[in-house]
């Protein structure tokens, strides 16, 4: 007399709102984009299925592939600057903030975090003004300390522009790794730190041997957030350098490249199909990066319970 389990409708009902919203806003557009990248227009402007021909154009046509690899290389450098500057500085700031001897730490914490909540429009525009060789305050400030010779129109020179923008982005977002690491440092119990003090593990060696291993999982999370954020970046470049990502595409990253292609800019006509192709390539790059993190890195990181 096996009684059949009643259908548990409440599970479906409770899941439905989130599933529906997520499907409508994320899944459908994603597959729409992937689908769009498989079509193109023929001479008579009729849409037809072209298979992977768009990808062949993107990677095969020298003009397309040149622009694509330029954007990808710039993006990689953009990401590298964040990993080498933003995250170490964020960790350093968090370590300083968590020091019990530091006064006004709440003030510093807030002050450093404020740029993160500013609009990228303001950040991009303000830095453009600051660094302007004509009306910017940077030349004057450098002059005041006798270092005017160091000044260069950083946003206008091909060799500096991308790094400058990356550092502006670091300035804006350094508060996020700082806060995450700060929270992770606070979660280390006092007694563990005191035990280290008793064992003679103090100062920097305490940071390297005790605290850093315990915050590694947080550093992993920050790295992957940085990766996804950087390869989706668009706004700061667009505001500071426009959609052409000048000078001479030196600051062109995948986001701006996608924007120009999809929507068109100045003399360039918008091409949704090639745009979708670039978007699909970006999706693939980020997917590979996240999978690498999830399967190769995160499984090796230990989370600790205290």
């Amino acid at each position, binding site marked *: 007399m096996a009684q059949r389990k009643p259908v548990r409708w409440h599970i479906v009902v409770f899941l439905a709102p989130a599933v529906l919203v997520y499907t409508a806003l994320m899944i459908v557009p994603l597959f729409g984009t992937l689908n769009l990248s498989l079509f193109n227009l023929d001479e008579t402007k009729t849409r037809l299925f072209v298979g992977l021909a768009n990808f062949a154009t993107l990677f095969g046509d020298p003009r397309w592939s040149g622009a694509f690899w330029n954007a990808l290389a710039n993006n990689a450098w953009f990401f590298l600057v964040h990993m080498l500057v933003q995250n170490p500085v964020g960790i350093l700031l968090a370590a300083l903030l968590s020091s019990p001897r530091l006064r006004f730490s709440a003030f510093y914490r807030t002050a450093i975090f404020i740029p993160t909540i500013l609009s990228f429009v303001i950040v991009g525009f303000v830095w453009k003004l600051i660094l302007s060789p004509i009306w910017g305050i940077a030349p004057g400030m450098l002059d005041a300390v006798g270092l005017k010779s160091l000044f260069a129109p950083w946003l206008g020179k091909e060799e500096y522009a991308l790094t400058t923008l990356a550092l502006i982005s670091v300035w804006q977002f350094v508060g996020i790794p700082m806060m995450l690491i700060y929270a992770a440092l606070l979660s280390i119990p006092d*007694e563990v730190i005191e035990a280290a003090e*008793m064992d*003679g593990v103090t100062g920097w060696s305490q940071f390297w041997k*005790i605290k850093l291993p315990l915050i590694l999982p947080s550093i992993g999370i920050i790295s992957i957030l940085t990766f996804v954020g950087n390869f989706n970046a668009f706004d700061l470049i667009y505001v500071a350098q426009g959609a052409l990502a000048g000078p001479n595409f030196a600051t062109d990253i995948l986001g701006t490249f996608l924007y120009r292609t999809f929507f068109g800019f100045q003399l360039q006509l918008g091409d949704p199909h090639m745009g979708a192709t670039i978007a699909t390539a970006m999706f693939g790059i980020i997917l590979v990066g996240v999978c690498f993190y999830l399967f190769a890195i995160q499984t090796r990181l230990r989370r600790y319970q205290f």
Partner: protein
Amino acid sequence: MGTLNLTKVTKSFGATDVIKGVDLTVNDGEFCVFVGPSGCGKSTLLRMIAGLEDVSSGDVMIDGRRVNDVAPAKREIAMVFQSYALYPHLTVRDNMGLALKQAGVPKAEIAQATDKAAAMLSLDALMERRPAELSGGQRQRVAIGRAIVRRPKLFLFDEPLSNLDAALRVQTRIEIARLHRDLGATMIYVTHDQVEAMTLADRIVVLRAGRVEQVGAPMELYNNPANTFVAGFIGSPQMNFLNGEALGLRAATVGVRPEHLTLDRGAGKLVAKVSHLEKLGGETLVYVVNPTHGLITIRLFGEHEFAVDEEISLNYDENKLFFFDEDGQRLY
């Protein structure tokens, strides 16, 4: 070697005085227990000896050397924390060896020291595990092992058994006592549990509100308490405090231990009503109420039966009474 001297040691957090002048000497090889209710400053005092809290005034001397301004690691002491405070990312072996490694001791020597400590605490099989893979009792043993490895002058224990269950607590208590005998080291142990204090200590320091109430061997405190606080704190169940004048005795308060009260079905010195009975098998605790003296506990050996609200009469031996004045100080 490991002698500790505290001279007029005080500690204030802002305007709050937590330790109000403690003088104490702990001799080499002694097992000294700080006991007192929560908030009495016993843990703070231990942390001051460890160097984890600054001393506001007075001197802390270890082996005759003033260590007030010496960093914790340089005081040659080891501490076992209530929460074990093991390094979660290191194996048992590395947890125990970290201090030596930091001090630059050669690897072979570290391995020898950790192996020896592991053998003493039967941790041999667990050396490559991490703290998350150990039970509470095993973690506590690792924490003790970490202290042993450093061969300190002084062992400090901060309520090390309070996170263990009752059975494990008794077992670990025995283990700590054995360890003290084997190592012959000076140990200072903080607890709020007077049973731990009585069973482990060579000498007990009873603290209340930042002051030492009495220092002495367990039986000395039990048989000769200096005031009502010590009398009430040492011994379980707690001593009964009776109104001296009502009994016609020349003292404000008269203390009598539950085990020194006897039952007298006929004419006892006190009549009271049974309010509650606790039968523990080996002994029976009878709680009785008397209008002038309040709740009185009687400890009887063996099994006894009483009805609630039954009137019984009690007797006591005058030689086993403790007499206290109005301020709770012992008269005789």
